[in-house]
């Protein structure tokens, strides 16, 4: 589904990604872990089409297409979804209008007619129940005045509305209490289908108790320094990142 090959990228001249290679197959969940500043969020934003980093080298192929050539909105319509670490507040734009525009843009892209007002509201209702989001939140402006937990749930709600093929969840667990974490994780699991994939970025093992990854990668200093199965996350939880950093630096000096 997604193949990243030797991706190098810089922000304001500073190289953040130093050669990332990664393959995500249909149906897989990949966890991306690593200490702060290792480049996880940069990678997520580049995949979603944010034009803030300069891609220096490498390729990203998604469903056989060159992802880096597509504007952000087209990536979304092609089935990529980014769950934001810090969802943006947009005063004056109601959730209903926002989601109606988004859903209908997706439908247009697929050659479908826009949803009628009643069908759209029905869809909203179903998805709200699915992700256990407070129905009042949908009547408010996008994320405006939402608590941290509400914002994250709202990301999962949007994901439910748009039914992506590849979800990239950037620290969706950060700032969540255990109940909210469970709701968010349940939402992700309910939306999972055999042909959809996810990249889950997290610092903590605890999210991975709920969303079981097939592969765990550790990103450090712009490189994937370790890839293994689910047991790697448990090891990281016990031992921290220091041994990873030491190994990585040792490998660097060996080169």
């Amino acid at each position, binding site marked *: 589904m997604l193949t990243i090959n030797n991706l190098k990228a810089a922000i304001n001249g500073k190289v953040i990604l130093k050669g990332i290679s990664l393959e995500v197959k249909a149906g897989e969940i990949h966890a991306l872990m690593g200490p702060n500043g290792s480049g996880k969020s940069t990678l997520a934003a580049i995949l*979603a*089409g*944010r*034009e803030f980093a300069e891609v220096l080298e490498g390729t990203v192929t998604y469903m056989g297409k060159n992802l880096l050539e597509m*504007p*952000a*909105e087209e*990536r*979304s*319509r092609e089935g990529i*979804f*980014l769950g*934001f670490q810090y*969802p*943006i507040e*947009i*005063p*004056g*734009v109601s959730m209903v*209008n*926002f989601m109606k*525009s*988004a859903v209908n*843009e*997706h439908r247009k*892209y697929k050659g479908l007619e826009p949803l009628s007002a009643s069908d759209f509201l029905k869809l909203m209702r179903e998805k709200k129940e699915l992700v256990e989001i407070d129905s009042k939140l949908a009547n408010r*402006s*996008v994320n405006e005045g939402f608590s941290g937990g509400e914002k994250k749930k709202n990301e999962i709600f*949007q994901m439910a509305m*748009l039914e992506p093929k590849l979800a990239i969840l950037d620290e969706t667990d950060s700032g969540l209490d255990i109940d909210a974490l469970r709701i968010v994780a349940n939402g992700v699991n309910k939306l999972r289908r055999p042909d959809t994939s996810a990249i889950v970025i997290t610092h903590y093992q605890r999210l991975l108790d709920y969303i079981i990854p097939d592969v765990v990668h550790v990103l450090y200093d712009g490189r994937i320094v370790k890839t293994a199965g689910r047991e790697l996350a448990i090891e990281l939880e016990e031992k921290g990142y220091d041994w990873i950093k030491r190994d990585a630096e040792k490998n660097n000096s060996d080169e």
Partner: protein
Amino acid sequence: MPKKITVMSNHSERSDKYIDIYRENIERISFSSSPYINSFREKAIAEFIKLGIPAKNNESYRYTNLDPFFKHEFKNYFMPGKQDFIRAEKFRCDVTDLDAHGIVLLNGFYPTINDKIRQLPGGVWIGSLNEASKIFDSHIEKHYGKYVNGNSDGLVHLNTALASGGVFIYVPAGAVLKKPVQIINLVESDEDIFNQHRNLVIVEKNADITLIICDHTLSPQKFLTNAVTEIYVGENSHFDIIRVQNEHNNAAKITHTFIHQEQNSHASSNNITLHGGLVRNSTHHYLGGEGAECFSYGLYLADKFQHVDNFVNVNHAYPNCTSNQLFKGVLDDMSTGVFNGRIYVNKGAQGTSAYQKNNNILLTDDAKMYTKPQLEIYADDVKCSHGATVGQLDNNALFYLQSRGISKHEARLMLMYGFAHEVIQNIRVEPLRERMDNLVMQRLKGELSRCASCMVKCG
């Protein structure tokens, strides 16, 4: 014999022209007005001679150049001709909407030959000021010219000297009008015209009314309007005025609105400028009794070489009053915006709360915004705040919308709409709020040529 005035006068040639116009036409202008209204004219022209047409050295007009309009040779326009009456009657016949009590004006004048004043439910009267002065002379004597008193803007005095018509609204004590009153002022002529009209709104105590004034140009001629509206809001009353300005790029609209409030009254003003060549709205709020509360809102959407200037003056004369100013603008192309927000708290006005906010989005490098708060506070127990921002659309928010599949173009529109909505959401009457939201969206999309779902079908 009129003595020649030379001292202290600041007027230039362009002001002289209007003094001559006054001298030549005063008889004709006075003919249709009441003696009481006429009694203000001589003093007003003397004030105008002193003050002149505001120039750039006038602090409150510093960023607004009136020359291109005031130097222009207009066919001066004091009263509509017979043809105009007939033309305006045509529009009147198209009034179909029942959401509002409507009045259609032509170039500021009440054009109907009959039915120049009529009664609405609850004993409310609306009609032409000249006609009203025959019936409501004592009310007019109590209020006319009182609330502009002491104003230092030459254009207000020019209006007092020359205005020969306008709208009169009388809301008796306790009257509650559920449907708003909508004044549609159509501007249309075969020639370039300068028109001045004068409105008077009297809201007695415990009453409630919403007034909408829509300005719309219908022909491409060059227009200049200098309009004064005096509003009295009695004790415990609730009054909202909403202006919707949709004029072409060759039109100048100058409005002066004076709202005088008694104790525990609530008043709001909302200036929504959708389109216009040169727009200057000055809104004066006088909080003249304890517990009065006023809201001054404005939204301006400008592009090309358009210029929109909002001047607000809130005067806290009594204790425990609240005022709130919120003005927002989106400026595209080479357009300019100006905001001057003055809060004046008198020495005795303890317990005052006064707030002001002006936020602007510039869509290009060439668009300009001048914003200036002006706080004069002479009381010590006061809560005041002000803030102004000038910036661009938020890139983070744009990306957020795009990341959900919304195109950049649509995302920009949504952000501008959301920005504007903060002003629109304060409109109390719900259908009107929705209508305004739609008009704003159309304007942002560049599709606004006429006001959708207006009760008048223009053209």
